């Protein structure tokens, strides 16, 4: 197991390095710079700005200087927000985005697993079609539509819930969590249905039924365990995706998370911010993939046996 983890980590490092290098040179090749404004900046002022941020150095020197800083965990100062470092901005947004992502994932799991399992029990009947149709709608419905719809109904018409903010007014975390979670709920429903269907046709399930176990025990005790493996494998990348992809929801609900910075940095040509967020999120994605691989390996008895054999 240890060797498996080690290999995966070693595989991840070059990936992150390539991401850093590609991002660094790509953002520099985009036309326009961080200090280009609608009102033209006096050349002397622009020069002073570039000097303050070391943009006057040759590109390769900037690159190595960046790598050097990065090795020490310093992502540099933000260009767009003078007085703030990229580290500071990331760490102010991360807890909020992570919390939002966590609630969204919880909601997604509750709805998704229930619907998926329910559907798999009577495939190709109404009990299957109805939840699965909803899942399909959930996948198709973008959050920039669902969010405002929920706001309209629960925030404005019924006036039950606050429509923006995060932790300012009690209950303001509910609508964004549901909005972000629902698309993932749909994926999870489909994954758990597929996983369950496969398991329910296995011989050992037939054995379990043959020995007279009640159906609910068959499902919860024997089928769920294997049937949810695809869901577990999906969770890691899904959480990373939630962190990186919460931009729309954060904008609709005015949530002070990471997503808004991530997208705006590109528009602002905030070089250090683009690099910082990209490096940070790609590291997270690699990390969560790793975690979910390991989790899936542990859940799957066959794979687990292999590892045991391997490490002994």
């Amino acid at each position, binding site marked *: 197991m240890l060797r498996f983890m080690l290999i995966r980590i070693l595989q991840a490092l070059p990936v992150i390095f390539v991401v850093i290098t590609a991002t660094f040179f790509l953002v520099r090749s985009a036309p*326009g710079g961080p200090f280009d404004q609608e009102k*033209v900046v006096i050349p002397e002022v622009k020069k*002073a*700005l570039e000097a303050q941020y070391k943009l006057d150095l040759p590109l390769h020197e900037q690159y190595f200087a960046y790598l050097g800083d990065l090795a020490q965990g310093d992502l540099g100062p933000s260009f767009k927000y003078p007085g*703030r470092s990229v580290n500071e*901005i990331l760490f102010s947004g991360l807890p909020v985005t992570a919390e939002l992502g966590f609630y969204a994932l919880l909601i997604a799991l509750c709805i998704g697993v229930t619907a998926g399992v329910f559907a798999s029990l009577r495939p190709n009947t109404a009990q299957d079609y109805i939840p699965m149709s909803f899942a399909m709608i959930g996948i198709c419905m973008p959050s920039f539509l669902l969010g405002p719809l929920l706001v309209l109904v629960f925030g404005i018409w019924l006036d039950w819930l606050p*429509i923006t903010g995060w932790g300012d007014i009690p209950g303001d975390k509910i609508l964004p969590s549901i909005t972000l979670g629902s698309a993932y709920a749909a994926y999870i429903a489909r994954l758990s249905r597929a996983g369950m269907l496969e398991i329910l046709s296995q011989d050992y399930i037939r054995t379990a039924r043959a020995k007279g176990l009640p159906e609910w025990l068959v499902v919860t005790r024997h089928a769920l365990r294997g049937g949810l493996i695809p869901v577990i494998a999906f969770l890691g990348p899904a959480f990373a995706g939630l962190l990186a992809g919460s931009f729309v929801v954060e904008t609709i609900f005015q949530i002070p998370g990471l997503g808004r910075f991530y997208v705006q940095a590109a528009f602002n040509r905030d070089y250090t911010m683009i690099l910082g967020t990209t490096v940070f999120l790609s590291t997270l994605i690699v990390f969560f993939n790793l975690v979910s691989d390991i989790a899936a390996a542990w859940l799957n008895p066959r794979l687990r046996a292999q590892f045991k054999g391997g490490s002994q």
Partner: protein
Amino acid sequence: MLLTSTGLILRRLLIGALALGLVACGRGESNVVQGNRDGVLHYGNGAEPQGLDPHVVTGVPENHIIRALFEGLAVKNPQTLEPEPGVAQRWEFSDGGRVITFFLNPEARWSNGEQVTASDYVWSWNRALHPGTGNEYSYMLFPLVNAEAYLKGEISDFNEVGVKALDDTTLEVTLNAPTPYFVQLMDHYSTFAVHPETLLQFGEMTDRYTPWTRVGNIVSNGAFTLTEWSLNRRIIVEKSEHYWDRDKVALNSVIFYPTENVVSEERMFRVEQLHYTQVVPLDKIPAYRQMPDTPYVQAPYLGTYYYLINTKRPPVDDARVRKALSMALDRETLVRTVLQETAVPAYSITPPDTLGYFPPKLFDYDPEEARRLLAEGGYPNGEGWPGLEILYNTQEAHRKIAVAIQQMWKKELNIDVTLSNQEWKVYLDSVTQIDFQVARRGWIGDYVDANNFLDLFITEGGNNNTHYSDPIYDDLILYRAPKAETREERYRLFAEAETMLMEEMPIIPIYTYTSKHLIHPSVEGLYSNLMDSLNLKYVRLVPGRRLPGSNK
């Protein structure tokens, strides 16, 4: 074992979801009701400010917060926009207006209780103009003798720049030429004083990124002080105990929200989470207009939306063709349909009534004349037209306008025009390089004076972007207008320049911007003006007033 833990997790998840759901019940008082009682204004500020350092940032959201925290030598009257006392109690002109002496209020205080002195201004203007600071708005102080030379590194002794502290409360300013709008510039944050000792505590004078503006560190001299700054969430300022005019300040506190999403901002207003919105989404405006006692407030704004023309690229290298394009444009219809009456048709670069200046209207919508000019320019009824491309930055509003104009030109002149959009920074690059035929542009004035619009098109103008160049025009703007003895004469010279510009038509003015806000009926003392400039000092909240249609 695994099973039980999965079951347990599932059960916990369900309980969590239920708990989330339960919090839903029972929403308390709205922000507005609470705010009216406690004197707290909930203000939609458009975006997260880049920062709060007056010599570093540029932008409108920054302006609102900085002007709550700091005060300039003079402030603008929110109704007339004429300068009135701020840190300076009064000022005197001498040497034909070339020298201005500001007499500072001895009661003016920093938020740490220290007196605001004339030497604070000298130090701060040195910082604002220092070549190392990289202040993008440094040109605001260019009317000072030697200021430009100092910024460009031609001289290095700040004592040669035209600003002197005669004593603690007397600041003498020497200008290159009489500059009628100079006192007005004292209300622009780039000319504000900062507290020298505070800055030096956190770094060098010219450092851009020190934490001196953070809560607890910042020392300011305005009506409010900074008490909370949560990134992308909110900024809270509270009434200052040391402000010289504190008795006039009615609000206890203002909360600025970074309301980037205009649709969400409008919804926040509707459920009374905000007193004031920065903008109003276009499609919501008709409904708001129909409301009795509407909270929708629209006023002309000191900005012009226009098309730049590259005067060196055929077919628009011919002034007759440029004029034909401009005259074939039905601005009234455009404003009525596409813009839903949220703009004013423009026939000049300077917006009307810029501190009493009305630009002459030199042409009108005239398709007949436009066709004649186009024929004269070599394209009778559009024959032989080589094509033309309109460039705009990627945004739905710009696209809609370009499409409408494309159709108008096709209909009236029978010419084909294509549209091209570019992402913002790419577009800025194209505009700076003058790599386009026709490009969309907007200009928002920094101060209320026609000079701020007309000096765009001098030959050396960094924002000219059209290759337009005329020594007579340059002379008018750079030498003759500043020397004008009276306001009337100066405005007459501006009108002359305006005429020259429209004769050559290097730009096609399209419309004058408006400011659009939703303002809760409980808010008083917020006036509409051309600068969309509000002074929070005068704002009061009246409890008990509700939004029309509000049922709570």
